């Protein structure tokens, strides 16, 4: 069994330090296994979030060699065994301790989005073709990797004015839901700050669920904002077509 050196960021926002550990690497091992090994052998208080260990819950987000990743999905053998592997918490949110960050901002943003609003009464049939698109958005596991990588949050810290790609995905899932009757276009333009997004596609690249965030959610939403605010013909068309 080979060995790898891992450098892990410890500490809190006030005081942080990096520590290096030697970890044995077995077949198929992932970064989260290495972190657990460090916990049970060297640093029992090393803080990390995880649940499913199968890329289904979105808990174990971190930055591995500077890239936002799910640790449970990052194979050790994908990295150069002779180089140090560096594990840091995701950058865009304040650190609580070690690899755990305070992601409560996301839960607050989520609360400001108009919830699912169906028509009253029974709604009968729904067809697969009408829901394929929305089902793609509903695959989101809320890992917040897209939030972490988006420069509007990561570099420009527009947390107050920008909802971030995760919530554009959520809004798209509601706006394109075959039964939803509410409109979140004003929110997107104003509080949501959709205009800040300049379609760099970094969010789509990191999404572990392979959601085409930019192409399938953000661009169609941008089009809707344009139609609503700048294109009177489309707007009238929409009023008559009911959406």
């Amino acid at each position, binding site marked *: 069994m080979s060995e790898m050196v891992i450098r892990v960021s410890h500490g809190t926002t006030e005081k942080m330090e990096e520590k290096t550990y030697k970890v044995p690497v077995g077949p198929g091992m992932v970064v989260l296994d290495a972190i657990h090994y460090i916990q049970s052998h060297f640093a029992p208080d090393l803080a990390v979030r995880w649940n499913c260990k*199968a890329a289904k819950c*979105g808990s174990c987000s971190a930055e591995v060699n500077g890239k936002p990743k799910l640790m449970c999905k990052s194979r050790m053998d994908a990295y150069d065994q002779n180089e140090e592997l560096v594990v840091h918490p995701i950058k865009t949110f304040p650190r609580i301790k*070690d690899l755990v960050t305070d992601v409560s901002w996301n839960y607050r943003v989520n609360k400001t989005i108009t919830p699912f609003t169906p028509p009253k009464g029974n709604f009968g*049939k729904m067809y697969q073709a009408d829901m394929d698109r929305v089902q793609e958005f509903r695959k989101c596991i809320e890992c917040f990797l897209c939030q972490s990588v988006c420069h509007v949050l990561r570099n420009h810290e527009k947390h107050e004015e920008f909802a971030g790609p995760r919530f554009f995905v959520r809004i798209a899932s509601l706006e394109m839901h075959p039964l939803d009757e509410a409109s979140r276009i004003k929110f997107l333009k104003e509080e949501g700050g959709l205009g800040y997004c300049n379609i760099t596609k970094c969010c789509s690249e990191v999404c572990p669920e392979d959601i085409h965030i930019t192409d399938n959610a953000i661009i169609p939403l941008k089009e809707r904002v344009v139609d609503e605010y700048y294109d009177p013909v489309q707007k009238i068309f929409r009023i008559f077509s009911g959406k």
Partner: protein
Amino acid sequence: MESYETHEHDVLVIGAGGAGLRAAIEAASQGVSVGVVCKSLLGKAHTVMAEGGVAAAMANVDKSDNWQTHFKDTMAGGKMLNNWRMAQIHAQQAPDRIHELEQWGALFDRTPTGDILQRAFGGHTCKRLCHVGDRTGLELIRTLQDRVVQIGMPVYMECTATHLFKDGGRIAGVLAYWRETGKFVLYKAKAIILATGGTGKAFVITSNSWEYTGDGFGMAYQAGAQLMDMEFVQFHPTGMVWPPGVRGILVTEAVRGEGGQLKNSKGERFMERYDPKRMELSTRDQVARAIYTEVKEGRGSPHGGVFLSVTHLNAEAVKKKLPSMYHQLKDFADVDITKEPMEVGPTTHYIMGGIRVEAETTASTVPGLYAAGETAAGMHGANRLGGNSLSDLLVFGRLSGHHAAQFAKQNSGAVKINEDEVRRAAQEVLAPFDRTSGPTPYELHEKLQEFMQAKVGIMRIESDIKEALVEIQDLKKKLTTVRVSGSRMFNPGWHLAYDLKNLLTSAEAIARAALMRQESRGAHTRLDHPKTDPEWGKVNHVISKDGDAMKVAQSPLPQMPDELKKLFEETK
């Protein structure tokens, strides 16, 4: 003691999986004040991992399906040890609970005619599982989570409950600590719903996460509630066996539901020898035992499992129907399931036993204390059918929310919690920080998992179980000397140190009940008593705290009314 924050609710729900969230929604609809406490972030509970589907007799695909058939399948799967009334309520109410989810925004896969599509699953005689590809649990939890956010109630996330308190005989509140800061918080409540899930982390090979340490069982037991059917632990037949890091991670039964075949190293579809009629879609207990036997008799795969193959199915259909399995196997095991078979073997998955509750109300034996979801016993008997858990969460989550709210309204007087008890509880949780020598929690946990797996696992024998019980007593002693280091801030070592207490209570309950049941039934297999014995089919094992000792008693199984009994005769 240090100062601590206090919150007060009419109904406090502990657990934010499907059961807890459905309970909270229902309780809130009764106009009482509701709070939810959970160990992880909202949306990360076990329910999110459920893959295959949720069972409900909607008869969208098999027109002949109805609640009676679902009820019969559930009872047969549970080897008739289920609480018949729970199984009946479940079968009758599940379809409404699914429709309700749609009204809250859930989008299940469809039939060509626009109804909810249903797939086959082991032990279900009709195509019955509503699903969203193989990420059904995510759809379920997100829908409930959105609903909870919409209603607007406090959700105390990353907060671990440790001790229940009573006022006189009735429930009065619970002590918890914030994982982030390690500070204590006291919740006063007129009624409490435990929806804390199971205890898979008592075993090495498991599909369960760190959260599954049997906290609900431990807390309820300490508070004087009864546990039941704890010998019945479900070993899911198809967990991953390779590579080592993912050993135990689930390969959903939907793989077999969609037509996957099990083969041994000789290429034989060995289920022919164990259950020729149902083959791969036999019940989980049978398939798990079959795989165990194949491996033991030398017909296993290179890494000690058997082969599960979907290569004979259309590759595009596999990717569409089982997308997350396709990725899971590709990413973790370098296996392209459309081209090569997977290697699978049994993994600890679910516990049928749990807190003993009343069928209609989910009330435990402690007034004001309710339990729902995996943490409650009775619904699944000796073996749970796939898909029957997600529906159980919805049906009994709702009932628990309703009845807890009613209880809170009818017993609206203020509850008092004894300060001394709170102080003692807090001291117990903090004690490991005071020690400078002694074992680490990780060492003790590893030990527990090893002997539970080896001695109280899928095949059991009296001498092994007795040895495990000796080891449990030994670990209990060692737990009083366990040491942790670091600060109280987000300290997993410290968290585990307290979780171990609940794990040990759960492990002891499992072992004691397993020792007592001298027969094989459903998920409980005794090598020294291989037959199913009708006499044992008349009793449940009920566990309660008797001073410092754990008491196991037998309780007669509630009798089914004649009109339900008739359902079973008709098919004979």
